[in-house]
C-alpha cells in the first residue's frame, strides 16, 4: 500500500527527497540539435504555443520508463510532438512525412530509420 500511495502522489519527475547516489559533477557542451531544441522551447513559450508548465507536464506524461531512458532534450522534443498533436497543431502523419523528407535531404538511409516514422505515428497522445 505505501508503494501505491507513493505512485499516486509522486510525479515521475518529482525527485525531491528520494534516495539517490552520490553527485557526479557531469556536464557537456550542448550538441547543435540540443541547443536548437532549447531555442525552440523558448520560442514556443514566447508564442504561447507551449509554455514551461505544459512542457513539464508533457515530459511527466511520458511516464517513468521513457523518462528514465531518454536524454534530457530527447524528452523535450518527444513531449513537444505529443503536445502539438494533442492541441491539433500538427498531425502525426505530417511529422512522419517531414521526417522522411529530412532523412532524404540529409542522405540518411531511410530503411534504417523506417521505424522512426512508425514511432512518431504511434506516439502516445
Amino acid at each position, binding site marked *: 500500500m505505501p508503494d501505491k500511495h507513493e505512485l499516486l502522489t509522486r510525479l515521475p*519527475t518529482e525527485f525531491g527527497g528520494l534516495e539517490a547516489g552520490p553527485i557526479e*559533477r*557531469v556536464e557537456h*557542451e550542448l550538441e547543435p540539435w540540443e541547443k536548437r531544441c*532549447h531555442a525552440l522551447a523558448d520560442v514556443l513559450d*514566447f508564442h504561447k*504555443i507551449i509554455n514551461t508548465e505544459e512542457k513539464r507536464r508533457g515530459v511527466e506524461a511520458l511516464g517513468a520508463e521513457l523518462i528514465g531512458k531518454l536524454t534530457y532534450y530527447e524528452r523535450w522534443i518527444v513531449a513537444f510532438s505529443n503536445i502539438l498533436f494533442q492541441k491539433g497543431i*500538427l498531425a502525426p502523419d505530417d511529422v512522419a512525412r517531414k521526417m522522411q523528407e529530412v532523412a532524404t535531404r540529409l542522405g*540518411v538511409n531511410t530503411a534504417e530509420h523506417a521505424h522512426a516514422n512508425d514511432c512518431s505515428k504511434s506516439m502516445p497522445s
Partner: protein
Amino acid sequence: MVDLHHDHNHEQDHGDHDRAAAGIGTGDYVPGYFEMLEMSIGELLVERGLIGAAEIRRQIEVLDSRTPALGAKVVARAWIDSEFKKRLLANGRAACEELGISFYDDTGLIVLENTDNVHNLIVCTLCSCYPRPVLGLPPDWYKLKPYRARAVTEPRAVLAEFGTIIPDDVEVRVSDSTAQVRFLVLPKRPKGSENFGEKQLAALVTRDAMIGVVPVELS
C-alpha cells in the same frame, strides 16, 4: 527502440554535427531519430507560419550570450555598492535589468544572500528551473536525480560532496525553484578581497558559487 546516437563519442561527432546542422551531408554522420524529429517539428512550425525561422536562430544567439559572467557582474556590483545590493535583494530581476541584463522569459528572480549565519543553496526538484538569463544553461548534474533528490533532505551531505563544509551553527537554506520564480545565490565576499576592484571581484565569482554549492575564494 531507437539507436541513440548520444552514445557515440561526442568529441569525434561534433564536427559532423555542425556540418549536419548546416545542412551539409557528410559521409558517415547519421543524425539520430530525435535530431530528425527536432528538425521536422521546427520546419513544420516555420512552414505553417507559427514561428519564424529567424526566431530560432536569434534565440540561439540569446542563449549563447548568457553565461555565468553576467551573474558574476551582478554579484560584484552588489559587493561594492550597498544601495544596489538593497535593490537586488528587494527585486532581483529589476536590479539585473538595471545592469542591462534582459530577461527573455517571464520569470521572476529572488536573490538570496549568504551571510555568516546563513548559507543558501538552489535546486529544482521537479525539473531543471534555473536562473538562465543570468547564468546561462545549467550543468548536467543540476538536472540529474542525485542533486535534485538529495539537496532538499541532506543539503550538508550534498555540499560536502562539493568540498563545502558548512559549520553546524550556520543555517543551510535550500530554495526549490519553480517555472515562475528562479533563485540566485549572492555569495559572501571572500576575505582578502577588500582592495579588489569590481572587475577583479567579478572574476572570482563562479557559476557554482551562485548555485550555492561552493564559496567564492581568492584564486
